[in-house]
């Protein structure tokens, strides 16, 4: 959990906006550090968390969370955290040895055309299973790292958007929880090019998610090139009407990721250049 980011977003584990759909995106950069932030944030906020980790192993997330001061193993044990380790689940499907060993959640690997309904079912049942201890944990939270890897595995953009829509309808609206999704893009931003050839998949996914989200954190590399001391910039964009009446508000920060956190600063105020 990065306290500087919390103050930028005007939130804290004790009080945060419910019903938000947070989109984390990156372009020629890596925004996965923000996923770790949100994971530790919501675990500290005592939310019931469902984590769909598709790109890394459980031990990776666990090791990073440990550095951020949260134990995933304990959270899992207490029933606070539901963890889907995509890599592990996928092996039994990609290399079928015995019939039907893997869970249903990764069914799309068998045939990407069927869509992500089974993955959604996993999320829904995971977040609603705590019938007895409703009051034990706070609002449900879904984290997905990352949605665009599904496209690499053959899932269509439409199916990914349907999945995110259902997650939003269930988690944000019905259960008043939060959703955080990461989407990655590696192309340059082409404002003029839109619409004609529908763009490439990850680009269209990002656009669709941007229309759905209520808060977007866009991470990208510095426009002037690679720098060792400033890892990139984050644009924070509120797409919903804030308390002060403004509805689209944008702020730009530069950031640097450290061993145990990240620092955010206004443009040009890095300690490396001052």
């Amino acid at each position, binding site marked *: 959990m990065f306290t500087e980011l919390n103050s930028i977003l005007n939130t804290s584990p004790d009080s945060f906006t419910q019903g938000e759909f947070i989109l984390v995106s990156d372009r020629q950069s890596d925004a996965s550090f923000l996923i770790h932030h949100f994971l530790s944030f919501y675990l500290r906020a005592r939310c019931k968390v469902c984590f769909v980790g598709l790109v890394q192993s459980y031990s990776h997330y666990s090791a990073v969370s440990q550095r951020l*001061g949260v134990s995933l193993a304990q959270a899992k044990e207490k029933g606070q955290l539901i963890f889907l380790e995509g890599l592990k689940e996928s*092996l039994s499907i990609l290399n079928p040895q015995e019939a039907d060993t893997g869970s249903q959640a990764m069914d799309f690997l*068998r045939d990407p055309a069927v869509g992500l309904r089974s993955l959604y079912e996993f999320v829904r049942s995971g977040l609603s299973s705590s019938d007895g201890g409703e009051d034990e944990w706070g609002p449900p939270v879904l984290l997905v790292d990352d949605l665009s890897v599904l496209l*690499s595995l053959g899932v269509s953009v439409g199916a990914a958007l349907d999945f995110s829509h259902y997650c939003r309808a269930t988690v944000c609206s019905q259960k008043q929880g939060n959703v955080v999704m990461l989407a990655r893009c590696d192309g340059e931003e082409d404002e003029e090019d839109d619409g004609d050839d529908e763009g*490439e998949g990850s680009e269209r996914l990002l656009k669709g998610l941007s229309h759905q989200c209520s808060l977007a954190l866009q991470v990208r590399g510095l*426009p*002037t090139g690679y720098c060792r001391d400033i890892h990139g910039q984050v644009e924070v964009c509120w797409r919903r009407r804030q308390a002060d009446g403004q509805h689209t508000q944008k702020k730009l920060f530069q950031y640097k990721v450290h061993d145990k956190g990240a620092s955010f600063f206004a443009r040009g105020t890095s300690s490396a250049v001052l």
Partner: protein
Amino acid sequence: MSVTRVTASMAAPANRVSKPSGERLPFNTTSFQKKTRSKLLSIPGTRPSVQNGQLLVSTGVTSLDYLLGGGLAVGTVLLIEEDRYDSYSRMILKYFLAEGVVCRHELFVAAAQDNPTDILQELPDPILDDVAIHKPVEQPRLSCEPHDSLDAMKIAWRYQNLPKVQSALASSSRFGHYYDVSKTMEPEIRQAAKCHPFYLPEHPTQSSPTHSPMLESYSALLKSLEDVIHREGFDVATPMSNSRNILRIGLHSLGSALWGDDLCCHDNPRHGHALATFLYGLRALLRSSLAVAVVTVPSHLIQNRALMGSITRLCDNAIALESFKGSERETNPLYKDYHGLLHVRQVPHLNCLVSQLPDHKDLAFKLKRKQFSIERLHLPPDLSETVSRVSRGELAGATMVASACGSGTSGNKHLDF
């Protein structure tokens, strides 16, 4: 207070194999804790990373090890985008395998083009004897003693305390071996290593009834890999025995047409997601085993850049080799000392928030007889007497370097600070 946090944790959590996973650190303890070295996995040819305690193996190329933050982490995949004629990428693959032979690791070599046994016969000869003498000769001395050169600095005395420029990338401690590419490895040494070849034409692929996006060739490869890992005990989940070893996996030219993939042939290939799905499965497999993979891909043939991006993201490390052979850059005086450029496409994120970013992104390589060296790209000193006469060519070089230094920029003119 000396805090040693050198614990061999891997992408796969091997150091925790012996104890049940429930026995974790209590909530909110600091990670400053002394872990004894007895828990270290002692496998020949490996060492823990000084930065994050990952278990590393050498790629066989010392300067590449340095570039990758000490070596390749066990459980990860290194993607090499081939140069146009696949000469240097193939060389690195051979270095990687030769290093495995020298360290007595097991090998898994898969190829569709040449028989893996042929690739193994071409492995370079290790320089085992002169390792101790070899190093100081090859590497210029670092700037440890500035007093030596104190007399020399009379006019430009302001620079006397600056470190000397060392353009070849190298770490201070020794790891990995040097090889003589003009000779091939002795058959006795080579045959001592256990190797599992996978030659695609020898594996009849049966068409599978599923709608999986994977190709049959890749499924067969993944299945064969999984078999070897389970059978030979490279699985982290198998009970800890004393003799654990590393499996080095070399996969040559994945994505080429010979693998049955049309990735290189069309803009919108029918099997566009086959390689990405295979790499996803490979990552899944490696994360739970004591294995490390090097994959080469003929990226210059892949028409769709977006697909290449998704392939890169499913590997941990990614570098691209750009040879000057056959490009207009060969004749550029700026590059006369080098054989090609090396681009770092991706650095791994493993068990830590921050990734090891290289100091520099402008790198070039050259293949010498005894060393494949990766160096920082800089202009050669202009020692010619007719400086004014060649200035035109040099100028072209200088503008090239200016654009090379700005690599990664999107061409915007404004400054961030």
